[in-house]
């Protein structure tokens, strides 16, 4: 999408088309001859994996929508019917439900890759921000999709999340009723969630297009964090995307799909929640409401704010912290003051990053537990306290660690070029 095109239409039809709609040229320049750093490791394969999973979700979802009934009296039954009576419904429903989890696994690994290798730094800020937009859209889509089977967790998850909006001062309750389309989560809510759940994946696909466009302007980052050189040295630092990375991505996609298949065929319900096999009941709350696993860290942050902060009460504070945890990612490119992209050359920050990953996983653990239970049975050490400590670290990593260490840390020596890093004696 950038740089001089190397496409040469060879047949008459290609020439004819190229003068009218150069779509083959676009594909060729983007995915065949695109110069890609020669040192990309397997952490760079998750972009391709994510594209595959977006397609899996859209195709399986369109099929499910042919059989699903978005009505509070029939939704639950219609999903059961899909898994039992519709030909191959069991397979397609399992692909869609587990596909969501595998989509999120891939997106989290993709994001941690970006955090570790500094993929958000200039000139890739827009690329990173578009990625955060995609992530937010995924969260909204996944949340609404989880409501559709209309089980107990569907209903009460929707109730808790929409009630969060009620925490906003003055307008909160009006917005909540507007979201519900009634006085509670009900038929109107289910119907509109179905409509939006069908819409948003196509919005995601459009933003993915922008994401790839923004990627192809500066080109890929890479593990050493150096830009591929321009001009005649460019060939020494890069390889054409095809066949080198089509094959590497393809291999990773196949391995990932093999793990996916294990879940689809042998553990189809293991990532779900038993309570969601009970039909939604507005009069009975499940003993322990938990969101889908991929929201757990943010659920823990929501519950960590149990105290008022000035004029902000605890409930609103929790909501602000939860959305702030994602919102802060938008400004990350300007919080990290270091010019060095890759953590390989940032000996101190690297450790803070590793603990950041541990903290994110730990927050997920806290989100799954009752906040008043004790961590590993240690008397007095509530999950609430662990969640509060990890929430503090989560924000401190962005607000304190990255801005300060970028100034005081002495980075390790970096290789002269990608070529030197790959082919030279440098073992970095």
């Amino acid at each position, binding site marked *: 999408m950038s740089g001089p095109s190397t496409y040469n239409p060879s047949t008459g039809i290609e020439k004819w088309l190229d003068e009218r709609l150069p779509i083959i040229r676009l594909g060729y320049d983007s995915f065949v001859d695109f110069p890609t750093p020669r040192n990309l490791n397997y952490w760079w394969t998750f972009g391709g994996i994510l594209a595959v999973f977006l397609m899996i979700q859209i195709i399986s979802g369109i099929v499910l929508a042919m059989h699903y009934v978005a009505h509070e009296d029939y939704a639950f039954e219609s999903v059961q019917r899909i898994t039992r009576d519709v030909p191959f419904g069991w397979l397609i429903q399992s692909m869609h439900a587990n596909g969501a989890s595998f989509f999120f696994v891939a997106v989290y690994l993709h994001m941690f890759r970006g955090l570790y290798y500094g993929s958000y730094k200039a000139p890739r800020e827009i690329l990173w921000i578009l990625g955060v937009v995609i992530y937010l859209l995924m969260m909204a889509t996944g949340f609404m999709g989880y409501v559709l089977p209309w089980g107990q967790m569907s209903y009460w998850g929707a*109730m808790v999340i929409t009630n969060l909006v009620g925490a906003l001062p003055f307008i909160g309750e009006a917005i909540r009723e507007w979201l519900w389309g009634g006085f509670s989560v009900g038929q109107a809510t289910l119907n509109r969630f179905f409509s939006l759940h069908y819409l948003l994946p196509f919005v995601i696909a459009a933003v993915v297009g922008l994401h790839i466009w923004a990627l192809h302007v500066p080109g890929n980052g890479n593990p050493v964090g150096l830009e591929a050189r321009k001009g005649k040295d460019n060939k020494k630092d890069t390889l054409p995307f095809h066949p080198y990375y089509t094959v590497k991505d393809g291999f990773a996609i196949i391995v990932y799909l093999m793990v996916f298949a294990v879940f689809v065929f042998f553990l189809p319900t293991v990532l779900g929640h038993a309570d969601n096999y009970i039909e939604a009941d507005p009069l009975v709350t499940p003993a322990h409401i938990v969101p889908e696993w991929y929201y757990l860290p943010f659920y823990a942050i929501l*519950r960590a704010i149990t105290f008022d902060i000035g004029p902000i009460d605890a409930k609103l504070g929790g909501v602000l912290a939860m959305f702030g945890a994602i919102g802060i990612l938008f400004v990350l490119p300007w919080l990290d003051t270091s010019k060095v992209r890759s953590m390989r050359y940032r000996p101190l920050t690297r450790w803070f990053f590793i603990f950041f990953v541990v903290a994110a996983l730990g927050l997920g653990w806290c989100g799954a537990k009752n906040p008043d239970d004790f961590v590993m049975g240690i008397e007095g050490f509530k999950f609430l306290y662990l969640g509060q400590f990890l929430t503090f670290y989560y924000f401190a990593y962005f607000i304190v660690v990255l801005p300060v260490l970028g100034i005081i840390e002495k980075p390790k020596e970096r290789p002269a070029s990608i070529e030197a890093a790959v082919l030279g004696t440098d073992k970095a």
Partner: protein
Amino acid sequence: MTEENGAPGADGQEPSRRDFIYIAAGGAAAVGGGLVAWPFIDQMNPAADTLALGSIRVDVSVVAVGSEITVMWRGGPVFIRHRTEEEIAEAQSVELNALPDEEARNDNLPAGTPGTDANRVLRPEFLIVKGNCTHLGCVPLGLGANTGDYDGWYCPCHGSHYDTSARIRRGPAPENLPVPDYFFETETTVKIGLSPEEASNSGWAVS
């Protein structure tokens, strides 16, 4: 435009008719855009038939002293507890300043009314409140399950305790359980969804 009715522009030149047309056209487009957008936003609000599902009638004679029932109103639960003398006395003895939320939260009374037990009920023996925790909307547990530390309700989701007047006493919930509009049609029949005032204005018999 002439000098008398037009101020000089930023570049020192007189604003022209064209400037006026730009601003007028831009303003009309903004207003028009808003007018077109509004129906698409407002359609998500509760529909007329949803709003019309206003009221239900409940026979409270089946609720024995010291027990409670849950009825469904507007898609959510409403608690009706027939309180014992002890529960009433316990609710009445609480000082206002002991309450995290000092307002009555009673739709039958003006906003800001103090949250004494008397302002939470029409008849002291029957406490009628909406049954969604004011924290995140879970249904609190009550008699027969867990009445919490204040003998009212206990929300299992995040540990909010409500007293025998369904006022929040401890936990993350910010407000008392709200009292819906209701009135006594007869000695034993409650109509939920209309306040006594609205009911008598509309010609209902109010007991």
